[in-house]
């Protein structure tokens, strides 16, 4: 029977409250009596999972979900408050690549120290030293104190030692993000070949792409609990979907909140001739006319800002009344109206939002926001979201400008 490489059962972790010296003392007294100081922040709650040989696990979740704490428990840096952790193979952890590096010592000295912490004997290290130096590729700097290194160099050296330690299970946090592009590529390549040799990886990452590429299974931590685990695609997709709805909820929440903060408010925000109040539908290239009535309790005309954004919030275009030197039409003492028309709207088919903002009369601060959904219909196969004016140049009157640029663009 194949035994799992990692067995985590019902792991909980509390951090004791230790802000006040007396709290430290009390927690210490509890520990001396052999008790767990259970009060305090609960970072992990009843997390269980197994990693089988040759299998790689991704751990995902928002910031503060307990991912790093889980890794620390797995590497044995901290002990869980409850539950058990069993890690069988030779583990190398890449929690922080420069960890254990002493800034005053040379790179070479630090390699020796780190290698011993990773369980390499002096003879093994001597055999692999060339390999390490080649991978780190920092040249004569290895003889310099580490305090003179750039952060990238520290990462290179740290990764090189870990790679040379020949682990069976690699536990890594979001560390690869530190190096430059080519070094990152090198690391990913190394990890891929490491996995091909039948080893396992435990990866914490915010990059779903990386998780999907390198892992078979995933664990989604949410507020310290294992929210979901299983096939990497199922878990990452639910995670992304959850994120989208959350961003959406936040936006709605913001919309509800708006209008309370500022002095200048939107009374009315309308798309003219709109049939459906929730979503205005128009044909590609059609015109659109918007009117917005603003309330200014102090009687000074507020500035209006109109903007068009894509469904995910990417800004496409925005213009404020004061940019164009437009003065509001005054309806009564405290109410002002702006009307704007976008002729031949060049948006490509898709979903958009049109936003109106009430700004203070100086045009510095957004006081209120209102939003309408917009759907552009059409049969266009063009890409992007705005149609740019263009014309195709006839082949016969091609001049010199074409040829050179084509050659140049291939150099990289």
């Amino acid at each position, binding site marked *: 029977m194949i035994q799992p490489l990692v067995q985590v059962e019902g792991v909980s972790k509390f951090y004791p409250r230790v802000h006040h010296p007396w709290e430290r003392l009390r927690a210490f007294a509890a520990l001396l009596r052999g008790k767990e100081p259970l009060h305090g922040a609960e970072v992990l709650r009843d997390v269980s999972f197994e990693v089988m040989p040759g299998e790689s696990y991704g751990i995902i979740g928002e910031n503060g979900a307990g991912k790093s704490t889980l890794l620390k428990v797995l590497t044995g840096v901290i002990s869980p408050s409850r539950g058990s952790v069993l890690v069988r193979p030779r583990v190398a952890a890449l929690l922080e690549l420069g960890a254990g590096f002493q800034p005053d010592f040379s790179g070479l000295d630090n390699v020796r120290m780190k290698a011993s912490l990773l369980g390499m*004997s002096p003879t093994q290290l001597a055999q692999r030293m060339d390999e390490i130096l080649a991978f780190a590729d920092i040249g004569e700097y290895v003889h310099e104190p580490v305090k003179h290194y750039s952060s990238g160099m520290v990462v290179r050296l740290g990764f090189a030692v870990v790679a040379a330690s020949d682990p069976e299970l690699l536990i890594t946090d979001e560390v690869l993000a530190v190096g430059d592009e080519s070094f990152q590529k090198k690391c990913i390549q190394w990890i891929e070949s490491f996995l091909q040799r039948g080893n396992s990886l435990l990866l914490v990452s915010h990059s779903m792409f990386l998780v999907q590429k390198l892992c078979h299974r995933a664990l989604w931590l949410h507020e310290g609990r294992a929210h979901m685990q299983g096939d990497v695609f199922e878990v990452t997709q639910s995670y992304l979907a959850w994120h989208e709805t959350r961003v959406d909820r936040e936006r709605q929440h913001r919309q509800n909140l708006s209008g309370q903060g500022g002095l200048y408010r939107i009374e009315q925000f309308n798309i003219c001739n709109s049939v459906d109040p929730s979503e205005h539908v128009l044909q590609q290239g059609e015109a659109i006319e918007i009117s917005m009535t603003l309330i200014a309790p102090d009687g000074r005309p507020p500035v209006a800002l109109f903007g068009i954004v894509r469904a995910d919030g990417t800004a496409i275009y925005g213009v404020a009344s004061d940019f164009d030197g437009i003065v509001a039409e005054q309806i009564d003492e405290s109410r002002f109206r702006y009307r704007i028309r976008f002729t031949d709207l060049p948006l490509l088919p898709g979903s958009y939002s049109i936003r109106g903002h009430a700004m203070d009369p100086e045009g510095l601060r957004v006081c209120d926001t209102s939003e309408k959904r917009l759907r552009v219909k059409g049969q266009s196969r063009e890409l992007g979201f705005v149609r740019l004016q263009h014309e195709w140049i006839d082949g016969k009157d091609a001049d010199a400008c074409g040829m050179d640029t084509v050659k140049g663009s291939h150099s990289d």
Partner: protein
Amino acid sequence: MRKVKNFNTVIFLQLVSRNIRTDYLENVTGFAWLVLQPLLMLAVYAFVFSTIFQARMPEAEGVGFVPFLAVAFWPWTAFSEAILKASSSITANAALIGKVAFPSELLPLSTVAATFTMHLIGYLAVLLFLFLIGTDLHWLGFLWAIPLLLLLALFAAGLALFASALQVFIRDTAQILPPLMTFWFFTTPILYSSTMLPDQLQAFFRWNPISWFVLRLREAFITGFSGFGLMDLLVPLLSLLTLLAGLGLFRRLRGHFEDFL
């Protein structure tokens, strides 16, 4: 299991060498200070005690006050400095402990080993110098001194484990420990001889384990063996028990260091 032990030995040796080199890394003369500094200190003590204080010691008629002091002073310095340095070895290496899993008792233990190594090199230099200038010290004293110093190092290691674990939880340890060690220094007959004390105090100070180390070291090099006593059994036992208890406490607490660092 055997493999794990080997790994730990490698880490331990790395930590010891790192500890020793930290103090000398950026010196021009490097490791020469290991020998030069103790000899300079010896010169200072010779000047202060023989010329200014004109200190005399009844037991030390043959050798003079300075050798009498030197024989006990360097082991004490090693002992005291080892404990003081090791007590902050966990808090000082907080970054390492939070990121790398390794047996953290190696930190205080390697600090003790490094401090003893450095001061014993100085001790050797001082004793050799005294021999060379013709001081009447017993050569055979070394045979006795080696097990005594080893035992002293084990005792220091035990106390260092206690102190370093305690300091993680109670930071005040860093402030309490130095005056405590100074008090211990002056209540141990290093600058003086226990025979100079009033009888009542003498009977009380006899229970100080370091007094026993000092007495036996002086006997080994200068005054000659005076016969076995109860302390010959108690102090080695106490040293080993301290070490075991220190290790026990440390291992119980080390899983929680990260929470308090």
